[in-house]
């Protein structure tokens, strides 16, 4: 037996041939399963509504919900409710996003500001602020202002706190590297802290979004002239289950779509966090 060593030429940096393209079902496996799950549950809903719980005061089949939504649309009511709620939400959540990110960032870089605001953030975050909705209705009347205020208040804190922790959590090695290249404090903030915190901020936006949607409904339940929350309340009072479910479904759909959009944004902003793992 002889001892020998084998030298292997390793292709440093050489481009590898493209991996075998996986089939359609393999690539979309998760999505196909999710879709299948939705289809099954909706089918069960329809069947239970038709054959099991036949009392229309308690439950209605899915087809009736769609019919009711179509009916409301034809009368122009649904558009009004969706438009009203959407406007309230857009204003409230937009304000919460701007103020939350600005305040969170300011608190992260200014120690004194943080010390002053910390107790109030903790206090208000812990308070079930939707409980203040009746008070806001009293202050701002039935108009849009009261809803915007409620949505702003319930959705600002996850955004603010995530911005704060995101910026504070910036890898100090990266800050030091930037400093070593002569970056000024404003440059370190804009070119290192903010991009580093961005994925965490988007997660905060996602959490705030979910709370904001609850805020829309609750605010409208306490007093409104239009909106999806109003539609739900009014339908419940007139025992119109189909319209009630239509309102709930639209809200759920809005929540899912916007949340997925933000998730997609997270992936785009921080691809290094989502390195694909074989499962």
């Amino acid at each position, binding site marked *: 037996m002889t001892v020998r060593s084998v030298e292997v030429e390793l292709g440093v940096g050489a481009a590898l041939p493209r991996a075998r393209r996986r089939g359609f079902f393999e690539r979309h496996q998760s999505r196909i399963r999710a879709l299948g799950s939705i289809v099954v549950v909706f089918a069960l809903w329809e069947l239970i509504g038709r054959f099991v719980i036949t009392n229309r005061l308690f439950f209605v089949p899915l087809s009736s919900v769609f019919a009711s939504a179509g009916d409301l649309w034809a009368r122009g009511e649904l558009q009004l409710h969706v438009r009203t709620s959407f406007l309230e939400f857009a204003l409230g959540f937009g304000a919460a996003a701007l103020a939350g990110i600005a305040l969170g960032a300011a608190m992260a870089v200014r120690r004194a500001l943080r010390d002053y605001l910390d107790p109030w953030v903790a206090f208000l975050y812990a308070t079930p602020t939707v409980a203040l909705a009746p008070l806001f209705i009293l202050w701002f009347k039935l108009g849009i202002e009261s809803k915007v205020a409620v949505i702003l208040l319930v959705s600002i804190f996850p955004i603010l706190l995530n911005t704060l922790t995101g910026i504070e959590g910036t890898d100090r*090695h*990266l800050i030091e*590297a930037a400093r*070593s*290249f*002569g970056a000024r404090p404003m440059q370190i903030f804009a*070119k290192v802290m903010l991009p580093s915190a961005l994925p965490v901020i988007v997660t905060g936006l996602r959490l705030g979004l979910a709370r904001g949607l609850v805020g829309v409904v609750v605010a409208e339940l306490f007093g409104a002239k239009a909106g999806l929350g109003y539609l739900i309340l009014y339908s419940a009072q007139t025992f119109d289950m189909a319209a009630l479910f239509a309102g709930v479904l639209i809200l759920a759909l809005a929540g899912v779509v916007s949340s997925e959009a933000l998730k997609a944004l997270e992936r785009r902003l921080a691809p290094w966090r989502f390195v694909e793992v074989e499962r």
Partner: protein
Amino acid sequence: MTAKLELRGVSKWFETRSGDVVEALRGVTFDVHAGEFVSVVGASGCGKTTLLRLVDGLLAPSRGEVLLDGRPIAGPGLDRALVFQLDALFPWRTVLDNVLFGLEVQGRLGEEARRAAGELLRFVGLGGFERAYPHELSGGMRQRTNLARALAVDPEVLLMDEPFASLDAQTREIMQAELLRIWNARRKTVLFITTRRSTSPTGSSSSRAGLARSATSLPWTCRGRAGWT
């Protein structure tokens, strides 16, 4: 030959949270000439990284002075670049944008700079990876990006903090040879820090460096202190 870099009785101590004073360096005196490659060899925890941070200007000495071209160092400057121990690359920037970072913050970004950065990447063997992100690269490639980022600002003094410590033996050897090649080609003044003599490029048998020397022969007080690496 005049000294490029001079350390005159440099001491540095830190105050910990509990109020204790930890001494990292005491009375360090040595100088480095222009174009020289000096390795500082010492056990971990003896203040080598602190030394580099003082020279880079990230820290100020507690006593003594650090002079560059005869002038005290006031802060990080365009004439020095630090290559970090861990590849402190920005994960949201492509390889090319990482390399351009120094020029960008110094307002020296232009078509010419981009072209030069691309050339530099080919020089360190990363041609074709300009648009890749750090997480898509191997450890050795990341460390070469790190090196290219420091070279991109065209510093007079290159400060290297155990840049190859985390690499495997084979990659380390390749990188050391590459560093010597770069040093030979560009004639930078290099201050290189390492724990082991064998990991110093100038200590390796393949060294062809005429001017290279090891700083262990210098009056160097190395005090073993856990926690300071």
